[in-house]
């Protein structure tokens, strides 16, 4: 237990360092005043100042003072105001669910199929299956995400035309003004494309890693021992090979999920999902210091939580790292 507490204290420290750095960087690089300059009719200086002060982004106040105010709010659970004087908390609540809906499914599907395809590729090394998925993975990995997303859109539109009705929706979360079961199906139809675009990348990436790690295990002595005991190839693979082969992937999954939450900006923008990634880009463009800082804080927590999770997961799977 002492170990977990110590780890937690460690994480807290790291979160504080990361957010402080994030806030100071955002506060010095972004200039919210610009948003009001060059407007016609010009906004009076006093008005600008009062708006900026109200949202705690006035560059005439010392940066440490603004930081203090911000931290004071954060500690009480208030992430401050956006540049448009709206609550960051509200915006956050709206967007986080959009991102989660998209990413949880995409990540899980990517990981599961990636592992599966990686394992099969390793077992059938250099056979047709391995080669097909090997080349496909390289193509996907070398194609920029936005290109894949746009290609998917074209493909969906093509199918829709052929079918004569809309199977895939290409923009948004759902069609407005529907409810009940209809809304559920409609949401799913909206989800397919963005999820697919994330899943494809995930599969391509994980399957390569998993294949490698599985190949190591396939050639390992302990798998040979398992077979010498009388297990068939398949039994040995499932009872002894898989767990050891997934082991190095646990850390990998956890971290990449943590980073993905705020990192699916392209996918979100192209498919018109107003999630965390899209928010981040918008916040930077509108010099919205508080929103940027909130996202940095959130990402830091998520990454460290993912690291914590990875440690726990590895400890659960691998007795060699358990603390006695």
């Amino acid at each position, binding site marked *: 237990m002492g170990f977990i507490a110590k780890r937690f204290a460690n994480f807290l420290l790291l979160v504080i360092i990361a957010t402080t750095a994030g806030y100071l960087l955002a506060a010095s690089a972004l200039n919210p005043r610009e948003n009001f300059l060059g407007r016609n009719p010009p906004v009076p200086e006093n008005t600008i100042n009062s708006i900026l002060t109200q949202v705690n982004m006035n560059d005439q106040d010392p940066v440490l003072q603004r930081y203090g105010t911000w931290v004071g709010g954060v500690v009480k659970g208030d992430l401050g105001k956006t540049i448009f004087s709206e609550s960051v908390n509200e915006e956050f609540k709206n967007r986080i669910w959009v991102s989660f809906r998209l990413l949880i499914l995409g990540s899980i599907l990517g990981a599961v199929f990636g592992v599966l395809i990686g394992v099969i590729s390793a077992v059938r090394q250099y056979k047709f299956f391995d080669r097909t998925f090997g080349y496909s993975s390289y193509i996907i990995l070398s194609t920029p995400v936005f290109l894949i997303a746009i290609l998917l859109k074209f493909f969906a539109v093509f199918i829709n035309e052929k079918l004569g009705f809309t199977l895939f929706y290409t923009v948004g979360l759902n069609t407005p003004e529907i409810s009940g079961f209809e809304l559920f199906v409609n949401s799913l139809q909206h989800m397919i494309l963005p999820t697919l675009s994330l899943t494809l990348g995930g599969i391509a990436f994980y399957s390569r890693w998993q294949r490698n790690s599985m190949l190591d295990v396939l050639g390992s002595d*302990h798998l*040979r021992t398992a077979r*010498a*005991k*009388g297990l068939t190839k398949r039994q040995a693979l499932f009872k*002894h090979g898989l767990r*050891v082969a997934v082991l190095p992937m646990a850390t990998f999954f956890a971290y990449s999920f943590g980073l993905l939450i705020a990192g699916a900006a392209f996918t979100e923008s192209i498919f018109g999902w107003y999630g965390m990634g899209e928010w981040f880009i918008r916040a930077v463009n509108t010099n919205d210091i508080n929103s940027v800082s909130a996202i940095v804080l959130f990402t830091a927590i998520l990454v460290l939580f993912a690291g914590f999770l990875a440690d726990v997961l590895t400890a659960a799977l*691998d007795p*060699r790292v358990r603390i006695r």
Partner: protein
Amino acid sequence: MKKTLVLQIKSLSVTFPSESGTVNAVRNVSLDIFPGEVLGVVGESGSGKSVLSLSTIGLLPNSARVSGEILLDGKNLLQLSDQEMSKHRGRDIAMVFQDPLSALNPVQTIGHQIAEALLIHQEISYDDALKRAGELLDEMRIPRPFERVKSYPHEFSGGMRQRVMIALAIANAPKIILADEPSTALDVTVQAQVLELLKRASQLTGAAVVLVTHDMGVVAGLADRIAIMYAGKIVEEGPIEKVFENPAMPYTIGLIRSIPRVDESEKRRLVSIAGSPPSPVALPPGCAFAPRCPAYTEICDSKVPDLEAFEGDRSVACLRKDEIAGLVSAGRLYPTEVTKGHVKSTSDVKLLEVSNLSKSFPLLKGNVFRRRVGSVYAVDKISFTLEQGKCLAIVGESGCGKTTTLLEVMNLVAPENGRIVVFGKNVSELSKSERLAIRKDLQIVFQDPFASLDPRLPIGEAIMEPMEVFSVSKSEQLTRMQELLELVGLNPAHANRFPSEFSGGQRQRIVIARALALNPKILILDEPVSALDVSVRAGVLNLLAELQEKLGISYLFVSHDLAVVQHVADYVAVMYLGSIVESGAVAQVFNSPHHPYTKALLSAVPIPDPKVEKSRERIILEGELPSPINPPSGCRFHNRCFVTKARSETDQAKCASERPELRIVEGAEVSCHFPLLK
């Protein structure tokens, strides 16, 4: 008297496709295995012995092409599917693998892994299986077996894991246990324990044991019958005493005579077999041994010799088998040099003096802020001297600090503690240029000749490199390089070839030539032959002896192999857990060891002679090397010592509390409270 067979291998051949052609791993091997016997299968690396054992248990890689028959109870195992074969694996045929560190699943408990083996073949509950696993561990003399079933493999040492592997092998009382180099990865004293247990395993279950190894000493002590493999074929087979006493195939004769023995009192040149084993891709047309054979005549190339009956219960594959005995007695095969050609030029000049040398490593703790919580003494106050033209050997098991000692000497900087004096100069007072000058006279040869040569540098350039550093002129470099190649027995015309074109033995010769390039006064040899095959080992050892006679250089030799040390060294220092427990002249220390550890170590070394090996009393040490992080109190050896256990309680307390100083006992330096006397 036709005995029933447990397993019959009939004209088995195994080939693998490879980029350079078909690899003939096993060629037309027939072998009968009788119930309860121990059959030793001996061969060098690449002789096909491991492929033979893997084909018997049906675990060859998919790319292997197999022909012939392996009959178990009249059933041909080679025709079974993986599913059918897995019913026999573990139940009828079990296997113990070479490397115990990686042979067990790291994420499952020992008990679970043994229980699994039982559950596959028997109708019992998991709890019963786990209980039986504990009993099996107990039979393999693992302390506190019923607690240990809950342990994971990483909590066991190498020797303990190999015991687990044997327990796993006997779990279902198989008919045959295949043991592939079961003790090679272990230290000598642990090896003795494991071999003892393998014998016990076979007695407990009545299983036949097929012991696959390269070590003639190991088979000599354990096997009833021996089969010798060379280039994928069995070349000689028969009862072990007869084969050792009167080998019939020239390869066997050479092999047996090429092995240094720890029980030898007189120094002799070893017999060395010329050349190295053929590549399994390009085998000679007739007998595969023909190119290296001293009894070669043209008929040897005419056909591949079959394994034919010889003197009743033996068989030999040699076209001239009936003439060989005559050739040997006439001294025409492998004549042994009775006297040495030259006398070593030695003097009392002390080239290297080490006194009270210590080296510790920090023990760190904490993951963010690492702090030192203690020290591990890898080397603890050791002293030795090396005289001009002599060979001093440091022996000990892994982790005893012998390599650290070498590295400290090679460092040429002031040690943490103690004094190192090289060529009369204290290393802590050396200037930079003096240090460089000393490097010239102090060269090293490493253990692994495959890793110590740059694969992209032609060997000639590799040899010239040290001269380049000391700016010798190009023409001088060239002549010297040619000389050196000739000196170590290689063809100077091959200077522009790359290391990959040479065999292990040849590479080690190249490394030696490189070390000699600057005419050093001291050559440090770190396990120079342990990575080499048995038949080429003798050649390198002979070369080292010859070089010492010709050049008068001194060797600081580090090895875990006592037979090799006995053969090459003049003085020996035995190390245990970082300190020297006994040192003195080799003949003296080996003939009458004074320290119990030396005695146990000598007794643990297998002697390649079945008569001696099977009749001698062996001291088998209990336990394993303690960790240097947590060394025992008092005499470091007291917890494994068989002498102190037999003494009075006050004596035992003395051993456990007081660390013995080195003192002179009958001419040797010994650190023991109660040394063994003549």
